[in-house]
C-alpha cells in the first residue's frame, strides 16, 4: 500500500501532464494520429512493394502481420521513453529534485509516469489499429484477415500487460541516462522507435537480420510481445502464444531487474556528483 500510493499519485500526475493541456477527448484523439499514420505508412509500403515488384507477391496475411507489428512497436516506443521526459523536464521545472527529497524513491515517480503513459498509449494504439484496418481495407480494396473475438481480445490485453515489465525496464535505463544528461535527451524517442522498428520483428521476421543479431532480436521481450499479439489476432500464425508470453515475461523481468539496479546506482551516484538538480549538462 505504501508503494502503491506514490505510484498512483505519479500516474495521476502523468495523466494530467499528458492530456490536461486541452480537453481529454481532443488530447487522446490527437494521440491517435501519429500511430495511425505510422501504421498506414508501413502497410502501404508493403502493399506498394508487393504489387509493384511482381504480380502474386501480395499476401493479405502478411499485410495484417505488418499492420499489427507497426501499431504495437509504436505503442511501446510511445511510453517506454516517458521516464526520460519525466526526469529531464522535471529537472528543468524543478519537479524532479522536489520528488527526490520526499521520503519515497524517484523510481515510484518513474514507474507511475510509465503506467499513465501506458494507459493513454494503449487507448491510442487500439484506436489507431482499428482506424488503420478500416482505412486500408477501403483504400486497398482488400479484406485484411483478423480474428476478433472476446478470447483474442483478452489475449492481446494480456500481452499488453505482460509487456509492461520490459517497457518499464527500458524506461528505467533511459531514466538513468537522463539523470546525468539534460541535453539531447529529446533524441532518445527517435532512437527507441527506430531500434524497435529494426529489432522487434515489427515489420519483418527477426530471422531476416544477420546472425547473431537475429538471435538476440528474437528473444527481446518486445519481439515476443508483438509475436503474442499476432498469434492472438491472426489466424494461422506460426508460433505458440503461451511460449511467446512466457518469454516476454521472463525477458521483461530480467530487463526490469537489471535496469532497476542501474537506475538505483545512477540515482546514488547522481546525488554524490550533485547532478540531481542540475538543469543543463
Amino acid at each position, binding site marked *: 500500500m505504501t508503494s502503491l500510493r506514490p505510484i498512483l499519485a505519479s500516474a495521476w500526475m502523468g495523466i494530467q501532464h499528458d492530456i490536461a493541456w486541452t480537453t481529454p477527448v481532443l*488530447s487522446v484523439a490527437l494521440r491517435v494520429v501519429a500511430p495511425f499514420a505510422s501504421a498506414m*505508412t508501413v502497410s502501404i509500403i508493403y502493399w506498394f*512493394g508487393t504489387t509493384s515488384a511482381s504480380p502474386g507477391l501480395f499476401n493479405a496475411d502478411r499485410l495484417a502481420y505488418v499492420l499489427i507489428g507497426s501499431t504495437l512497436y509504436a505503442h511501446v516506443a510511445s511510453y517506454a521513453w516517458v521516464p526520460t521526459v519525466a526526469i529531464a523536464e522535471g529537472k528543468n521545472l524543478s519537479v524532479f529534485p522536489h520528488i527526490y527529497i520526499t521520503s519515497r524513491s524517484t523510481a515510484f515517480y518513474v514507474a507511475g509516469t510509465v503506467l499513465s503513459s501506458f494507459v493513454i498509449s494503449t487507448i491510442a494504439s487500439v484506436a489507431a489499429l482499428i482506424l488503420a484496418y478500416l482505412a486500408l481495407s477501403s483504400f486497398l480494396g482488400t479484406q485484411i484477415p483478423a480474428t476478433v473475438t472476446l478470447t483474442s481480445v483478452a489475449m492481446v490485453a494480456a500481452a499488453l500487460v505482460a509487456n509492461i515489465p520490459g517497457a518499464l525496464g527500458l524506461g528505467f535505463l533511459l531514466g538513468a541516462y537522463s539523470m546525468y544528461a539534460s541535453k539531447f535527451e529529446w533524441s532518445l524517442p527517435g532512437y527507441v522507435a527506430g531500434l524497435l*522498428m529494426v529489432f522487434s520483428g515489427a515489420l*519483418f521476421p527477426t530471422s531476416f537480420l544477420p546472425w547473431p543479431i537475429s538471435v538476440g532480436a528474437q528473444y527481446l521481450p518486445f519481439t515476443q510481445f508483438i509475436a503474442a499479439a499476432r498469434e492472438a489476432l491472426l489466424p494461422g500464425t506460426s508460433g505458440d502464444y503461451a511460449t511467446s508470453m512466457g518469454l516476454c515475461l521472463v525477458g521483461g523481468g530480467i530487463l526490469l531487474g537489471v535496469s532497476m539496479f542501474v537506475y538505483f546506482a545512477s540515482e546514488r551516484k547522481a546525488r554524490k556528483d550533485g547532478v540531481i538538480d542540475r538543469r543543463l549538462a
Partner: protein
Amino acid sequence: MKARALVRLWSIFGEPLWIVVSMGFPVLSSLALSLLYYSIGAASYVGFAVLGGVMVSFWGNVLWSMASQFYWDKQEGLFEIYLTSPAPISAILIGMSVGGIIGTVPSALIVTGIGWVLFHPAVNAVWGGVILTFGLTLASLYAMGMTLSSLYLAYGREAESLNEVLQEPVSMLSGLYFPSLGARSPFPLAIQAAASLIPLTIGMDALRKTLFYGNDIWQVWPDLAILGVMAVVLLFASTYALKYLENVGRRDGTIGVRIR
C-alpha cells in the same frame, strides 16, 4: 540573416554529438523500411526508403527547428531580443533556414552512405534534374517552415503536441517512402489533391522521377514550376502572417509570455 545562420551552424558543428543525435530516427527508420522492402521481395524499391530517410531529416528539421523554434526561443528569452533588434524577423527566419539546411546535410549524407553501402539501391539519375529538384524542394519546404513558425507564434505549450500530430501524417501523405501521387498511389483523388498542397509531396514525386526513373528537367518541369511558385507564395505568406500575429501578440500582451 547571416548572423542567425552562423549561430545555428555553430550550435550544430560546434557540438558533433548534435549530428549523432539528430540522425538517429532518419537512419534507423530508413534502415527498417529498406529491410521491409527487401524482405518482401521488392529490393528494386529500396532506394525509395533511402531517399525517404534523407528527406525525413529535412522534414524533421523544418518541424522541430523551424516551425516551433520561436516557441523554444520564447522559453529561453531570445524572442524578445529578435523583436527589439533592428533586423527584420523574416531575415532571422531565412538565416535559420539556411543554417538548418547546411546543418542537416551531414545527417542526410550519413543516411545516404549507410543506404548505399548496405543495399546498393538501383539509381537511374539525371543529376541536373535531381539537384534542381532537391534545391527547389528544400526552398519550398523551408518556406513552409517559416509560415508554420508564424502560426506557432500564437501557440504556447501546444506547440510540441502539434508537432507530434503533424510529423507522421505529413510523412505519410507526402509519400516519403512510397509514391503518394499518380497511378501507383493508394490514396483516393481527393486525398492526393490535398496532399499536393504540401511542398514535400510534389518534391518527393519529382525526386523519385529524376533519381530513379531517369526523367530529365523537361519531363518534371510542372513539378518544378509548382515548387517554385510554392516557395515564393509561402515566403510572402510567412512574412504577412508573422507581421499580423506579431501585432496581435503586441496588442494582447501575449507576445513575450513564456508559458501559457
